[in-house]
């Protein structure tokens, strides 16, 4: 069903690039250089093929039909769940819930766990570097329940101040929700220590794995997090699918988030009983095709080996950072000791939007702006940054193209 890829013994970037059909195109007459992987990664043929194979070969609604196509679709869909379970090292498949992505996962936890457990005066802790999707659902919950949102401060390098975090923890703390890897800065947060400290005061911890899942090996049992969430599209998979991992006992005690088909056991007009985990949280016909393709994405990344890729990505980051630092008036935003391959920066007297327009003219795709982290930008005293984010399929020569293009743009703008 899934196109087989020859195993890579070492990192053969030219070979890997062949797996990504989109990279073979020109933008404004120039070869595309795609440095916006933190926003979304491109998709290998294996993922694209999995989607078309489903629609061409066995499109059917799952979990209900008795016919051949429905059974085939159901088993492919459930095969993804089993793959995710192994990928995250969860204890059981019941702990793997499919959502639309990280945003929906966090909203699910805030609405279900949060509304069920949070009382007036309780406290929820997040950090300064959270994405808006890990701020707003908690603000809404706090407003409804009269709870208090506390924010862990960070230092100039973009690292969480751990001692300050410990001071915020108390018996009032009920939820800690933290990003593993910052999308704007690339910082890798010490989540294992954060989780342990939260558990010591009896709080549950949600880890936003939007950026971490493609770069780091994830073991939810080792982390001991209560919830972990990631989006498929940042992991070479399709858009519109995400995963919420939750510890079984916690998920069991949580009320359903949305009502509808699939999540019920029996319905009458007087009483409805709910389905078992994980279906209790999967109301309605899910995004079947893209969920099936998520397995292809995970198989792809697993075959390449995340830790081998990390070494390569770190080399790219180090090279790019050294080249960026040669540029006059350039200031890196996010200089944590532990970070992934994201280079965010500002340049004196140059607006990030102008840079993005001129880089685009050279076929270079970067992200500019506040990266949906306005409170973080305010903390750093800036309006936005230019962010180049790399993935395994990048080449050193592309960084040279990017730096050349950047220097050209700065010359035009200054």
């Amino acid at each position: 069903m899934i196109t087989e890829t020859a195993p890579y013994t070492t990192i053969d970037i030219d070979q890997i690039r062949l797996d990504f059909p989109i990279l073979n195109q020109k933008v404004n007459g120039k070869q595309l250089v795609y440095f916006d992987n933190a926003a979304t990664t491109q998709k290998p043929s294996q993922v694209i093929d999995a989607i078309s194979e489903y629609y061409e070969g066995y499109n059917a609604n799952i979990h209900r039909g008795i016919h051949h196509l429905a059974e085939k679709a159901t088993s492919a869909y459930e095969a993804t769940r089993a793959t995710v379970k192994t990928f995250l090292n969860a204890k059981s498949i019941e702990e793997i819930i499919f959502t639309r992505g990280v945003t929906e996962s966090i909203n699910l936890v805030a609405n279900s766990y949060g509304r069920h457990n949070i009382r007036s005066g309780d406290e929820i802790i997040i950090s300064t570097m959270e994405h808006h999707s890990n701020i707003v659902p908690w603000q809404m919950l706090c407003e409804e329940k009269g709870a208090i949102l506390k924010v862990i401060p960070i230092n100039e390098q973009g690292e969480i101040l751990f001692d300050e975090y410990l001071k915020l923890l108390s018996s009032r703390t009920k939820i800690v929700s933290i990003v593993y890897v910052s999308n704007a800065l690339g910082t890798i947060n010490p989540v294992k220590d954060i989780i342990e400290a939260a558990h010591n005061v009896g709080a549950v911890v949600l880890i936003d794995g939007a950026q971490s899942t493609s770069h780091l090996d994830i073991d939810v049992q080792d982390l001991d997090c209560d919830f972990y969430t990631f989006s498929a599209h940042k992991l070479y998979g399709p858009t519109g699918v995400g995963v919420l991992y939750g510890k079984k006992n916690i998920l069991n005690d949580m009320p359903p988030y949305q009502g509808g088909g699939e999540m019920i056991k029996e319905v009458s007009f007087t009483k409805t009983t709910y389905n078992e985990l994980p279906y209790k949280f999967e109301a309605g016909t899910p995004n079947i095709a893209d969920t099936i393709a998520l397995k292809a994405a995970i198989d792809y990344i697993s075959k390449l080996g995340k830790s081998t890729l990390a070494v390569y990505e770190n080399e790219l980051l180090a090279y790019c950072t050294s080249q960026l630092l040669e540029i006059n008036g350039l200031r890196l935003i996010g200089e944590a000791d532990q970070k992934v391959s994201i280079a965010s920066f500002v340049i004196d007297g140059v607006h990030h939007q102008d840079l993005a327009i001129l880089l685009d003219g050279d076929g270079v795709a970067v992200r500019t702006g506040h990266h949906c982290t306005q409170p973080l930008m305010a903390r750093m005293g800036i309006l936005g940054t230019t962010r180049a984010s790399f993935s395994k399929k990048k080449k050193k020569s592309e960084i040279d193209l990017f730096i050349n293009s950047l220097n050209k743009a700065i010359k035009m703008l200054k």
Partner: protein
Amino acid sequence: MSTEEIQQKIIEEFAYFDNWADKYEYIIEMGKKLPSLSDEFKTEDNKIKGCQSNVWLHAIMQNGLVEFKADSDSVIVKGLISMLIRVLSLHTPDEIISSDLMFIDKIGMTQHLAQTRSNGLLSMLKQMKFYAMAYKAKAQIT
């Protein structure tokens, strides 16, 4: 000159450029030349917030003509603004309301008015026409 004639002139100026970079160099140059709006007009009321950059627009009515002044924190947006001002400023409300700003498309800058550019330029253009309508309505009342 009518708004139509000014637009024609801009289109002719851009016809000299046969590549992308020269075009932007020219827009940046115009952006740098456009005088900054003084702080008294850079108010929250005059601010048009974009996701990436901001625009400030100030309008006054004198002798039956609407004069626009504007600014942006992005120099490319400022260059685009300077062209909008060149076309629309110091015209009557009726001229401004009825003007069809076809030059934007003709010089290949339509993408800057697209939703994803999030630079406040599209809102600014609408706001310029609103000002003209408001001044026209005001003139009719008094």
